[in-house]
């Protein structure tokens, strides 16, 4: 095994071009487990810790450019207002020690359906900035996950940053596990209200081969909210609408039975989380509306 230690992003791209099988390592919270357990013996480890830019973020007009290695702890502490869904999801990652090392770039690189960041990124809307010596491109998050632990990266590409849309409305994240800390999701759900475009986006984790959006559920809910004038009148969402939305979210799952839970449990739990996160975010939206309109 060789340990490559590029001091700059350009050096890292050159190293990845020269050794496409090199495994990038930043926080190490996935890669080192595989090495410790002898599940993986990469020919080259490509350490990204010396590239300071990867640990930085910029808040822009419309989106946040989040460096691939910004640790979850920093997201929780600094980006709660801009990226509430991702901040909530970050808080459910493992433990403080892991959150101090791990970041969204690793979650995307591993592309496990159980990665905690994915539902939040899908719901918020995001683009993954990847680069190789051939150039840079942005992959929409909807096109990023291509299979179980597979993503749209080419062999010579590295993840540099994620551009996540700043929240324009309430966002929520919910995760099912056997306890609060140190838990891999049995299933997870992210939901974001986008009052600007009068739309709702979702993200489902650990209940399909890849993280997915519940598109049929989103379309149904968008139409129902529009038809009932809900965005304007701020009424509570009709229970039958919430139920139909939850059922469609369950139907968007394609889960398996495994040691953490059965497929039918996952489908059920995703429906429950969908209904709850919709209620929480909608209540928050209604509250904000009342405040801005000054009504009692």
């Amino acid at each position: 095994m060789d340990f490559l230690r590029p001091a700059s992003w350009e050096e890292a791209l050159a190293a990845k071009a020269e050794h496409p099988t090199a495994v990038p390592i930043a926080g190490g919270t996935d890669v080192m487990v595989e090495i410790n357990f002898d599940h993986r013996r990469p020919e080259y480890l490509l350490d990204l810790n010396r590239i300071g830019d990867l640990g930085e973020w910029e808040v822009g007009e419309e989106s946040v450019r989040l460096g691939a290695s910004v640790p979850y702890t920093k997201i929780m502490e600094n980006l709660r207002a801009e990226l509430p869904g991702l901040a909530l999801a970050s808080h459910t990652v493992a433990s403080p020690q892991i959150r101090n090392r791990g970041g969204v770039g690793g979650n995307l690189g591993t592309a496990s359906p159980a990665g905690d960041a994915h539902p939040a990124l899908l719901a918020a809307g995001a683009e993954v900035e990847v680069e190789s010596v051939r150039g840079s491109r942005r992959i929409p998050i909807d096109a990023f996950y291509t299979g179980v632990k597979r993503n749209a990266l080419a062999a010579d590409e590295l993840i540099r940053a994620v551009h996540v849309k700043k929240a324009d409305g309430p966002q929520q994240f919910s995760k099912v596990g056997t306890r609060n800390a140190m838990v891999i999701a049995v299933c997870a759900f992210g939901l974001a209200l986008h009052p600007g475009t009068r739309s709702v986006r979702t993200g489902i984790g650990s209940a399909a081969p890849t993280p997915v959006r519940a598109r049929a559920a989103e379309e149904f809910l968008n139409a129902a909210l529009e038809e009932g004038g809900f965005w304007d009148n701020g009424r509570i969402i009709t229970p039958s609408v919430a139920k139909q939305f939850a059922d469609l979210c369950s139907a968007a799952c394609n889960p398996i039975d495994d040691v953490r839970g059965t497929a039918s449990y996952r489908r059920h739990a995703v429906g429950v989380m969908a209904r709850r996160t919709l209620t929480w975010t909608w209540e928050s939206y209604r509250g904000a509306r009342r405040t801005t309109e000054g009504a009692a």
Partner: protein
Amino acid sequence: MRVNFTVNGRPQEADDVWEGESLLYVLRERLGLPGSKNACEQGECGSCTVRLDGVPVCSCLVAAGQVEGREVVTVEGLADFAKQRAEGGCASGACGTSLQNAQEWQAQGTDSQTGEGTELSPIQQAFIDAGAVQCGFCTPGLLVAADEMLERNPNPTDADIREALSGNLCRCTGYEKIMDAVRLAAARQSEAV
């Protein structure tokens, strides 16, 4: 490969390090510092917790090569580290813990039951006084994690303590005494100010 880094305030060099080796392995097997414990090797248990550039991390998940030029504090250096912090820095210019002192470090002194006669960090003394040590295997990781929390948050609520220690498992399930110990250390810390 060779790795140069700072351990407990002193520069150290580890040779013949395998490229896939963890920081934990380097500390225990190359530098002879077995205080950081090896249990799950997957970041679940927290018994290998050390500080890397001040931040608590699982040393089993840090690749050895990643610590080149960086600073690590282990449980063996915790007493000196806490002392230096209390004094507001290193006045003499020769602080930290030498490798030999770290290797020989024991919480024994004249009485291992009370810690008397040993220079302990406040959190170590509190663990002894509160009876928070059973088999002791999780203790080093808990000490490092708890010490860092008290540095950051001198007046933690119970929820803060639970959150900060949520990545450290105690198989003896001695969590109540551990909570007592951290509360005790926090109380003593605020009295001292």
